[in-house]
């Protein structure tokens, strides 16, 4: 009950207040009092236990510390991964820079194609080939140890196709003898020297000089030969490949499924022993080759399969792709079981 005197401006009637106090004082029951007091005591006793819990006391600082540590770890991890990725990209770019250097003359549309992220992956077998058979050629051709770039090779091949007279005087990649026992590095036979004079001439000109009938026959047969036909459809690329250059990233070739032939064994794994004799024996039972292929094959009739392949490569280097395809077709007929090395693309 209010016993204090109210402020003068407050509505207050002392007689009403006195009379109201006479109205009685109903109070809550004892059970209600007990329930409320019990709840209050229960909560009051529970509070110190909760306050004294070390987990409760250190919950906020530990949470903040955990968040800071996790955030720092994530940032560090992201920075490291980003740095590694950047280093890889820089390394790949650095490796591809010499190859991607602009050609001195007659740039081609294909040169503008980006190397792509798969450049390193595709360049790996090419590098293997460089180590085995192509490195000596490069050194001999350029006179320096610097590996020729892909654009330089392509430009050389392009130049050979566009300016046959200059190429005849100085072939883009002349066949050079190699001290290493590599199949493609052997010098060509003497009988092929005359054919080498036509190196650098376009395929159309070579076809014009060749007999007409066999050429038509071989052209009709070329697509059925799988990789050979496909190779014939891309002479410029073959020229660049035949120049001994390891193909660059070449994502274009991998992206087109039809551009890749059957899975052929690698050149470095080509056996040259008893399998050769067996293949020759099988080839003896085959029908006679085509006239032009037979003419080419006659020169190599006593030669081992390696010589055949060397001759094919030589023809390709001389831009005589049609002859190379025909000879390769004859080779396949004579040595059907001999693994033809995969040409890097």
């Amino acid at each position, binding site marked *: 009950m*209010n016993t204090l005197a109210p402020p003068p401006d407050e509505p207050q009637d002392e007689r009403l207040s006195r009379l109201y106090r006479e109205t009685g004082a109903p109070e809550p029951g004892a059970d209600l009092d007990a329930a409320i007091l019990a709840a209050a005591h229960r909560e009051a006793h529970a509070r110190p236990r909760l306050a004294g819990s070390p987990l409760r006391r250190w919950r906020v600082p530990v949470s903040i510390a955990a968040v800071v540590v996790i955030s720092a770890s994530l940032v560090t991890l992201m920075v490291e991964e980003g740095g590694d990725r950047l280093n890889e990209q820089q390394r790949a770019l650095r490796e591809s820079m010499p190859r991607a250097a602009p050609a001195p003359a007659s740039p081609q549309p294909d040169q503008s194609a980006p190397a792509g992220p798969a450049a390193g992956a595709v360049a790996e077998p090419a590098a293997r080939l460089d180590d085995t058979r192509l490195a000596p050629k490069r050194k001999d051709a350029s006179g320096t140890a610097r590996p020729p770039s892909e654009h330089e090779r392509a430009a050389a091949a392009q130049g050979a196709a566009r300016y046959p007279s200059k190429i005849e005087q100085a072939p883009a990649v002349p066949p050079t003898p190699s001290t290493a026992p590599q199949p493609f590095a052997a010098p060509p036979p003497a009988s092929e020297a005359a054919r080498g004079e036509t190196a650098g001439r376009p395929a159309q000109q070579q076809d014009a000089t060749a007999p007409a009938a066999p050429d038509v026959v071989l052209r009709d047969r070329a697509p059925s030969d799988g990789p050979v036909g496909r190779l014939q459809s891309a002479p410029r690329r073959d020229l660049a490949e035949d120049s001994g250059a390891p193909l660059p990233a070449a994502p274009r070739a991998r992206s087109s499924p039809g551009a890749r032939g059957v899975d052929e064994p690698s050149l470095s794994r080509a056996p040259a022993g008893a399998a050769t004799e067996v293949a020759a024996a099988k080839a003896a039972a085959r029908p006679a080759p085509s006239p032009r292929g037979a003419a080419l094959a006659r020169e190599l009739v006593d030669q081992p399969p390696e010589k055949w392949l060397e001759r094919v490569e030589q023809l390709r280097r001389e831009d005589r792709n049609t002859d190379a395809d025909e000879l390769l077709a004859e080779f396949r007929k004579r040595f059907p079981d001999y693994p033809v090395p995969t040409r890097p693309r």
Partner: protein
Amino acid sequence: MLGYCDGDAGAFDVLYRRHRGGLYRYILRLCANAGVADELFQDVWTNLIRARRQYRVTAKFTTYLYRLAHNRVVDHFRAQGSRMMLSLDDDDGPALPDPPAPARDQPETAYAIQQQAARLLDALAALPAEQREAFLLQQEGGLSVEEIADATGVSRETAKSRLRYAVAKLRQGMNEWQ
């Protein structure tokens, strides 16, 4: 209350004994139902216990306690669908019910006082809810006009007007009875 917030259960006992009667009568005479009053009374104290960690000394504890009670009563009436809070326009509404016939020649004995108190309770029950609440807060809680305004969430002038209307109507009813 601060002692109870620090874990002193005895401080709560003191608070409870000090305010239990007035708070209970405040609720009882607003609701006019003993069962509902018990329920709301327990809810108010339970809410106080639960909200003790959020308690800040911004006003007198009595004001804080009656604010909790006011909110709980308002929630109860809203849940019941009845309208507790009438507008002040109703202050000039229906007149108080006619008091019983006065005992003109009766001396001021204890019996007469009890009769007057009963008459006062009847007049109080006939008041609009806002005015009744203002009068109960003044009589049971001892709150000033400012504290009544704080507890009920209205302005000081509104609280003062409600209280003035309540006193005037009760006085009028008691005079008519006499």
